[in-house]
């Protein structure tokens, strides 16, 4: 499962991920991280079975945790399937299907928002 973690000025200084790994014995895969001096956002992937446990530990340390079950959201009424987003996506989560429609793969999406910024019809948005 993918978890989006938001850190405030206090938690951003703590080694929260290492603590969570040590306590749960779970491997945590960092998909994307943007950490500044006063706040940060990290997208991690953990084993589904261990997700709840990791979540609890992180929350206890003051980290905001969001479960990401879906990919970037696409408004089907606005999308014209031009594919401007296809070559922008760093994880190749956006592709054409057999009908030449643009489709998103939730598994691969790391919620970076690159596609959201390039969409000419404003059809894409981040769920959070």
């Amino acid at each position: 499962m993918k978890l989006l973690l938001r850190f405030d000025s206090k938690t951003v200084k703590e080694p929260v991920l290492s603590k969570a790994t040590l306590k749960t014995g779970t491997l945590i895969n960092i998909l994307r991280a943007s950490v500044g001096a006063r706040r940060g956002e990290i997208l991690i992937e953990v084993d589904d079975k261990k997700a709840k446990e990791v979540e609890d530990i992180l929350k206890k340390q003051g980290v905001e945790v969001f479960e990401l079950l879906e990919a970037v959201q696409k408004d089907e009424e606005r999308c014209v399937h031009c594919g401007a987003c296809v070559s922008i996506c760093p994880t190749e989560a956006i592709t054409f299907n057999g009908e030449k429609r643009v489709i998103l793969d939730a598994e691969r999406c790391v919620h970076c928002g690159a596609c959201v910024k390039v969409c000419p019809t404003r059809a894409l948005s981040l769920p959070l």
Partner: protein
Amino acid sequence: MVKTIEEINQKIREGNVVVVTAAEMKEIVEELGAEKAAKEVDVVTTGTFGAMCSSGAFFNFGHSDPPIKMQRVWMNDVEAYTGIAAVDAYLGAAQLSETVEEYGGSHVIEELVKGREVELRATAYGTDCYPRKEIVTEISLEDVNQAVMLNPRNAYQRYNAATNSSDRLLRTYMGTLLPNFGNVTFAGTGEISPLNNDPEYRTIGVGTRIFLCGAKGYVIGEGTQHAPPYGTLMVKGNLKEMKPEYMKAAFFPGYGATLFVGIGIPIPILDADMARFTAVRNSQIETKIIDFGVARRDRPVVRKVTYEELISGKVEINGEEVRVSPLSSFYMAEKIMKELKREIGRGEFFLTAPVDRIPTKGVFKPMRQKEIKVVKSVMVEAHTISPDTTIEEAARIMIDKGINHLPVVEKDVLVGIITSWDIAKAVARKRKGVIREIMTRKVIYTHPDEPVEVAARKMEKNDISALPVVDSRKKVLGIVTSEDLSRLIAR
């Protein structure tokens, strides 16, 4: 064997016309050969759906009481051109709103086609016959007398693909281009695009009836910048009859508003030659990938490429695989071909013979300019220093010469730049030492032949006030400052 348009229309009336999409026709000709395919097939439908900036609509709003001769007019705060009769105006798809961000003429057109009302606002100077000076009202497509989509340049036969060699992200009308050849974008639908299926413009010409955004429209003539095989069409159609699903307002980030226009054109298969033309494949349609990293009119060609390669989603540039984005929708183009096929099959859409041919030759000339001002003409002598100069010595040079920028040079090569602000900072922090420790190493520079507009944009984008001018070996030839440039513009 030769067929006429009238014979085909008779078949449409009788309900026994054979219509196939351009995609289907490739297979048919491959299987049967052109002669036999021409006997079997009467009409091939083609389609394209892409962002076409050169689009817009003419409106006649009707007269107010008391009447107004509109001098300026806005629709949802997007200005339309009204330098024609009193209540006629042309709203361009690419015109931007004066109040709402990322909203333009295309969005107004889309709202109207969706049946929504928009605000109409106009001002005037007042005459004896048109005394009114101002009006604000709400209008919908039902309220206006005419709403005619008229697009000066649509349906490009083929188009240059785009990439970006520079080290910064570019936001262009060809979409967002990632740095260092990070991606390629292209436009046009290749082998299913109308003009590629009639490359000699035998059947597509003045007066050709077409499918335009869900309505019946017409080709008025060749489009602006028509330069075969980069042919274009000028088209018109009744906005009131259009369907929102076949058009879409768009905003290319960092560039501006544009309109996705859906066009379908039926090609009559009059003889074996027409069958052969409509069998064209993406592998036979060539274009160029050009480098938007160079902000000039004549952008360098990176390589030649076919639509087959572009559509595959990956092309090779300098030995590396680069991912490709189409900017035209193949899904929508296909949908349009199928819809047009259905309409012809049902006897709802008849073909036309062109009233006149559009040119099969044409060149796209550059603008006649008085002169192109280049950096060389405004640059001044640069005082350079070595990185081992002390901060104190650099400060003294700046004051002596009355300048704010010193390019830092080592072995004849530009290695940094120091500004009076850097010196002030160093002094405020009581720093002693040499320039090497405080200079900016990533220098933004220009070349003597770069146009001044490009140099000015570099300064604006990077929020800096001077650019060293260097040759291809990064030897400093001079410096150009924002003061020099503003003096030039003030003249």
